[in-house]
């Protein structure tokens, strides 16, 4: 008779669910956290805290489709809590992001760098809904519910966020061309 794998006896369904959750969403959570706080180490801490809190409240997660918004909500709260404790500067992003071909093709490298810099200068009130939409994949209504705002107000913030991104990038280009001329 085949003996059961000792590991399978130990890992219960809850633990397996948590592992799947961690492996599926850690990357997205890290990126969201990084663009929220702008610090690599802090972003990693936020992911850790978020996942540990998720583990404690795993029973609250009923559907797999709801996992990502649920985790983003936890992460935002952790970030807010951390922000209250440390009075973090949430606007200033560091420039220590390693270059990697996976996220920027050579011909678009310049655009990506400008975009990241512009993103780092984007005010927090615009950056947060934009991240929820672009990285989190949330709809305007979902973002409104998440931020406790009206859907129309969120649409306005998102519109302005993109306008400001363009404006910051154009400003940077103008500075560069002015410096060259």
């Amino acid at each position, binding site marked *: 008779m085949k003996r059961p794998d000792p590991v399978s006896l130990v890992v219960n369904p809850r633990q397996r669910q948590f592992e799947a959750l961690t492996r599926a969403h850690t990357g997205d959570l890290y990126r969201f956290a990084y663009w929220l706080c702008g610090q*690599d180490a802090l972003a990693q801490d936020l992911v850790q805290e978020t996942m540990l809190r998720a583990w404690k409240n795993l029973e609250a997660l009923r559907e797999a489709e709801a996992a990502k918004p649920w985790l983003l909500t936890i992460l935002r709260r952790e970030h807010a809590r951390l922000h209250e404790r440390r009075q973090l500067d949430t606007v200033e992003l560091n420039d220590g992001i390693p270059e990697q071909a996976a996220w920027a093709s050579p011909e678009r490298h310049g655009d990506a760098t400008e*975009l990241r810099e512009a993103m780092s200068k984007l005010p927090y009130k615009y950056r947060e809904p934009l991240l929820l939409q672009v990285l989190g994949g949330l*709809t305007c209504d979902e973002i409104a519910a998440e931020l406790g705002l009206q859907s129309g107000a969120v649409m306005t913030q998102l519109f302005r966020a993109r306008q400001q991104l363009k404006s910051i990038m154009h400003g940077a280009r103008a500075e560069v061309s002015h410096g060259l001329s």
Partner: protein
Amino acid sequence: MDCLEFRRRLGADPHAHDAEQLAHRAQCVGCAAAWDRSQQAESDLFAALQIPVPAGLAERVLLTQATGERRQYGRRRTIALAMAASLVAAIGGSLLWREFDARTLPALAVAHMPEEIHSLDLTQPITAQAIEAGFAARGQSLQGPLPTDVTYVHDCPVGPYLTVHLVSRVGDTSVAVLYVPGKQGGTGRDFHRGDWRGRVVQLQHGQLVMLTDQRGKQPFDAVASTVAQDWRVAIDGLGGPRVSQL
């Protein structure tokens, strides 16, 4: 939908494509071009935000969680073991105590009473000869004058003890009196078990247990003192030491 509304919605949510937007895009060249530019910009933005994730981050999260869980498990197990041990000790202690308590003289005396409960209803005094015969059955001889109002005598086994079971009346209260010849020491005291109130006193050569479930006009303390003194005189004699309540 006009161009202004189309551009406003496009700027807020480039991926939205409701029927109105699609219809306007199909008929407006300028907005169609804006839509194309918006999709490209959105793609660039998404790509720019895709920074590399630190290697092993998911594994570190899992390790932290598993380590914490393991520690919690150990703590919970220790607490559970301590609680189980406490429970076993409490149950064991309780059983031991009940076992011990059931063998005490007050407990045995109370347990004996239902067998002869009607003896407390007797009111006619019995003769001195009957009382002396009851003590003689236990190899005991009386040393002093007998109490006057004794209504019952019998040689009864109470647990392991061979006793002389008597009933003395004080006023309107009947008190069962169990004399245990030869018993010394032990725990003597007033006791209260169920409806029974009682007292154990040490005499010279044995112990006297008095108990009643009746509430007469006199308080039990006074009744018990009177009965104890009467039987101390009768059993130990007039010149014996004063009865000591244990």
